[in-house]
């Protein structure tokens, strides 16, 4: 039972996208794996692991009537469906500041060099149109230790960005 695909769907947000897409997949005999679905700037986006015994083409055909009727763009890639091997993050970094180009590149560049492997990143643009603010949450693994990441952050935060690093101590009980 392998045969995993990553289905990417993008379209203008409206009610019912998830229900329609997943119903079409269920009716077509697919099984779903892990997913990330979120509204970004008025668009609804789906990244969804789909287990399907057929080809990319047959999966596309299965979805065609839904994507046409809801005006969605779908993209499908064959993937390795590696379930049951979650990597646990040990650090969380929150960043915010007045929005300007280069925040993500600067912060993630410094963190990558200091040993961060990002597992999850979410960001939003808030504030008003004239004064937008950028807020980003990152979870990941500090492969070279928390101190190394903190020193890297201390350098970039001098440039007008506020960043806070919190270790994640996962309790197993």
């Amino acid at each position, binding site marked *: 039972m392998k045969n995993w695909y990553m289905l990417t769907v993008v379209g203008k947000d409206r009610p019912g996208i998830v229900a329609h897409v997943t119903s079409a997949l269920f009716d077509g005999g697919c099984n779903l794996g892990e997913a990330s679905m979120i509204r970004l700037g008025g668009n609804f986006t789906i990244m969804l692991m789909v287990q399907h015994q057929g080809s990319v083409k047959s999966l596309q055909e299965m979805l065609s009537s839904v994507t046409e009727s809801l005006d969605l763009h779908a993209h499908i890639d064959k993937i390795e469906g590696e379930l*049951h*091997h*979650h990597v646990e993050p040990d650090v*969380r970094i929150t960043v915010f500041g007045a929005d300007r180009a280069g925040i993500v590149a600067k912060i993630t560049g410094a963190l990558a060099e200091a040993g961060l492997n990002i597992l999850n990143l979410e960001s939003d643009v808030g504030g008003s149109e004239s004064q937008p603010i950028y807020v980003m*949450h990152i979870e990941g693994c500090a492969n070279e230790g928390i101190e190394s990441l903190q020193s890297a952050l201390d350098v970039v935060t001098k440039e007008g960005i506020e960043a806070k690093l919190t270790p994640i*101590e*996962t*309790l*197993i*009980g």
Partner: protein
Amino acid sequence: MAVLDILVYPDERLKQVAMPVENFDSELEAFVADLEETIRAGPACVGLAATQVGHPQRIAIVDVSVKPKVKTHGRILLINPEITAWEGYVVGREGCMSVPDYTGNVIRAEQITLETFDLSGNKNLYQLEGFEARAVQHEIDHLDGMLFLDRLVSRRNDLFRRKTYK
């Protein structure tokens, strides 16, 4: 002594409410020794409740001393435990020996007062905080047939530890 098998969700026995211990005898002592051996066999494990090994009595062990930089009372034996006071709340990440390969965020009281009994039936009082208080709350949940899955809050936009303004 023996390492006991740990039940894994969706085993129905994890939903049982455990019965209070009534006899503080050698049988209890032997079970606690087995429970302790089982917890020591799980390298990352900081607590284990009797419910998790299919023994529906109000018994658990918590020991967070393997974690660096964490306030700890060492090994805490929970027998008929009761939390008599709560203070504050905090979101933290939890996983469970009975729920492999998944962790999630759970809100717990930051400080608790714990009443529990030792093997001879004497009552002990603990003032606990942070990670250790979280572990005790997680284990007592097991005795009430609850898993951390019952208390999950979203991973997105969750309330992390608030900055304290002075």
